[in-house]
């Protein structure tokens, strides 16, 4: 199967995808972080998408916040990697050979902090000049991934986290 994939022209890949998240609590301190080292493969034939993220590559504006994120909240030494394995549900609505933007729905398993949860998200795929840009925005709940917030800082971090994904895929060589 791998041999077949390697020669195929329907594998698109990126190693510099972007994932950012933010907490919407009404706090003067913004709790948000970016990761620009996300790797992902998109199979345009089957509609499958996989993502791999190093949790330590999330960067915050505040160094202390970054340290606490890694040490206390998501335990990135114990759970260094986060992954997503999913599938585009409405693949037939996307014409990869024609330039344009297509709304898509993706469903799959998100693994974070050692816990795997099914998530669905709406987004778009844009085809332009042989490249594919994927964009999606969705929400997860911290308690679904057993990330606990001590009551002392509960007003600074909301239970719902907004996640934005942006990837520019190129044909995999």
């Amino acid at each position: 199967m791998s041999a077949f994939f390697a020669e195929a022209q329907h594998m698109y890949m990126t190693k510099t995808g972007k994932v950012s998240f933010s907490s919407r609590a009404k706090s003067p301190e913004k709790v948000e972080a970016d990761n620009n080292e996300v790797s992902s493969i998109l199979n345009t034939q089957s509609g499958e998408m996989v993502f791999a993220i190093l949790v330590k590559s999330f960067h915050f504006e505040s160094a202390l916040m970054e340290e606490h994120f890694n040490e206390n909240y998501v335990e990135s030494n114990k759970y260094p990697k986060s992954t997503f394995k999913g599938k585009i549900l409405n693949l037939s609505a996307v014409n990869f050979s024609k330039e344009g933007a297509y709304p898509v729905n993706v469903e799959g398993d998100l693994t974070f902090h050692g816990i795997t949860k099914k998530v669905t998200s709406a987004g778009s795929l844009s085809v332009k000049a042989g490249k594919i840009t994927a964009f999606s925005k969705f929400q997860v709940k911290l308690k679904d991934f057993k990330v606990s917030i001590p009551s002392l800082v509960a007003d600074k971090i909301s239970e719902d986290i907004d996640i934005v994904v942006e990837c520019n895929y190129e044909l995999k060589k």
Partner: protein
Amino acid sequence: MKNHILFLFLMSISWSTVHAQDDLMKMLENETSNEKKKNDYATATFKTTRLMNGHSIENVAAGVLDFKVSHRFGMLNSGGYQLFGLDQATMRMGLDYGISNRLMIGVGRSTFQKQYDAFGKFKILRQATGGKWSSPVSISAVSTVMLKTLKWEDPKLQNYYTSRLSFAHQLIIARKFSEGLSLQIMPSFVHYNLAKSVNDPNDIFALGAGGRIKLTKRLSFNVEYYHILPISFVAGENYRLPGTKNSLAIGFDIETGGHIFQLHFTNSTGMTEKTFITETTGDFFKGDIHFGFNISRVFTIKKKRLKK
């Protein structure tokens, strides 16, 4: 036998469809594992830049200002009349700032001996695995200058400003053994521009050792000890100040968001290197113990730019 082969065949088909995404994931892992590995640095070896009295291996990050207020109360064995030391206190207030992730500077003022102090601390080596620069330990160098501004003992003498100065130089070698255990050793050297008396040394050598055990994510138990070494530049001279003891401190770090509270018990009164390493007079095991705390509050002055 035939059935078995058929069964295996069916199994492999169903496996390949169910786990097609796993194949894709494996492919992604192969792609990324070929790349040059990056250093994985040990982070948060200690919760803050001080173990208790002295420096830990940690630096404040670039652009971060750390405001520290430290207190040492009187001695526990001073009895109920002094409320076991709580009636007296010495204090140090300080500001530390991270110029880069490797270099930090700081200034402070202590009520004890009316001292001003300033230091520079540089991270020479960072503990790391995986990459090109892997190292089992982190190493930092700290140099502190202390200015004692108490009135001259004998104003009739010809007194020089430089006589008020003393210096401390330390190397800190630390290793984070696991999430729960970090240890460090601190070879230290203290120099007095003016020795107290003829037989007292200008230069004192000490070896410090310390560590922490993390009890929970936000609470750790720390120990810090400085042993004065019997080394002297001048033959026959004392290698330590008369009547002094080695400095010992035990305590806890409690972290609450942007604050770190350090509560401890120590036989040292001063909070500058020359005072706690070389001028500790309390005997820990006879109850000459000060209860003390450090409060640290960090402010991010220069924010890291997030790439949009």
